[in-house]
Structures are given as structure tokens and as C-alpha cells.
């Protein structure tokens, strides 16, 4: 069965530190990849997505992610985090075929940024 794994469950950083959150998926076919963010008490917002083309994608708020097909990975990065980045981060994968739109989410990573 298709699955998504986020390696870091809880990350604590100081402001201005660099961030990298890991995401791996298990599916051999073509996929669409997403990172969503959930600020405290709010709904999920799309940070960035990858469908095809340049494997390095840039999203909102200075986030970027790199798709490495050989490693089935889609890691999220930000060079310098801010206190306002404190949130829950979810990696999600959707199979390109089948057209059901079903998103499979990782377990989420809680990011806490200390001022």
C-alpha cells in the first residue's frame, strides 16, 4: 500500500536556524507531491507542490522542496526560520494515475521555533 513517512516528528529550532524536514513515499509510479502547513488552530494551507519539471520547487514564505526521484523523497527546506513558522507540516502524495484525487498524508512534523 502507498505510504508517506516523515522522519522528524518534533523539531525545535531557534530563529534564523536552517530547516530541513524529511519526507519519503513508497510508490513506484508517477506521483504529485505536496507540502501543507497547519498553523495553530487553523486549516491546512498549501506551501508548495511538485507535478513535473524542475525538481527544486519554491513555495510561499521562503520555503522550497527538492524532489529526488531515485530516493522517493521530497524534503522541505528553509534557510532561516522565523518564530511565525511554528506550525505542523504535512507531506502528502497523490498518485497521478487513477484520477481519484486521493491524497496520502505523512504523520506530520511539529516545528517549534524559539524566538
Amino acid at each position, binding site marked *: 500500500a502507498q505510504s508517506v513517512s516523515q522522519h522528524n516528528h518534533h523539531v525545535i529550532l531557534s530563529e534564523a536556524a536552517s530547516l530541513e524536514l524529511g519526507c519519503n513515499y513508497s510508490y513506484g509510479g508517477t506521483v504529485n507531491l505536496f507540502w501543507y502547513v497547519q498553523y495553530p488552530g487553523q486549516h491546512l494551507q498549501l506551501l508548495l507542490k511538485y507535478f513535473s519539471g524542475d525538481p527544486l520547487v519554491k513555495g510561499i514564505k521562503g520555503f522550497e522542496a527538492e524532489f529526488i526521484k531515485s530516493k522517493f523523497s521530497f524534503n522541505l527546506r528553509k534557510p532561516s526560520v522565523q518564530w511565525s513558522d511554528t506550525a505542523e507540516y504535512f507531506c502528502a502524495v497523490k*498518485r*497521478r494515475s487513477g484520477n481519484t*484525487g486521493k491524497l496520502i*498524508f505523512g504523520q506530520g512534523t511539529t516545528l517549534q521555533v524559539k524566538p
Partner: protein
Amino acid sequence: DTAVSQTPKYLVTQMGNDKSIKCEQNLGHDTMYWYKQDSKKFLKIMFSYNNKELIINETVPNRFSPKSPDKAHLNLHINSLELGDSAVYFCASSQVASGGLDTQYFGPGTRLTVL
């Protein structure tokens, strides 16, 4: 303008009751979804409807019944509520284009507490 809206935002009820959550999207999307987020923040798809037709039903107890009166609305009715139904329920929508190149947009969530 709220793209995907849900009502109510909070729902507190007793075990055994029947309740409904409503979802509306004004994005013109053809597909809508219900996700359940448990206490560990894990998100899992429950249902999806494409143009009022059920296309995903993820082994959800039949106490849960989605209803889509039109493609802009997807309501979730839950019968005989149980303690384990306590969670945050998110509605989402997307335009399932050819090739599966769609992005899901999420509503604000409904926090259901069963006492």
C-alpha cells in the same frame, strides 16, 4: 471570500446522537473530500465525491454518510456518535483535471467532541 467553508467550527455532543457537518466550496471545483484528523494530527481521507458521485470510500463505518446535493456542497452526516469519532474533520475540494494535476484546498475544519 472563503474558498472552502465548513459549519459548524465546533461541535460538542453526547454519545449516541446524530449530527451533520456542512461544507461548501466556491472555487468551481468538481471534486470534494472529507478527511479526519485524529488526536495525533494524522490526516486520513474518508470520502470523495466527483460531480455528486461517490468515488472514494475509505472503509469508514456506515454510521458516516456523505451527501452531495450539488457539486459545490458535500455534507457529512454521522449517526450514533461514539467517543472515537472525536476528531477534527476537514473538507477539501479540487478540480480533478486530466492527468491528475489537481491541488486540494482545505476548509477550516470542524472540531467534533463526543462526550
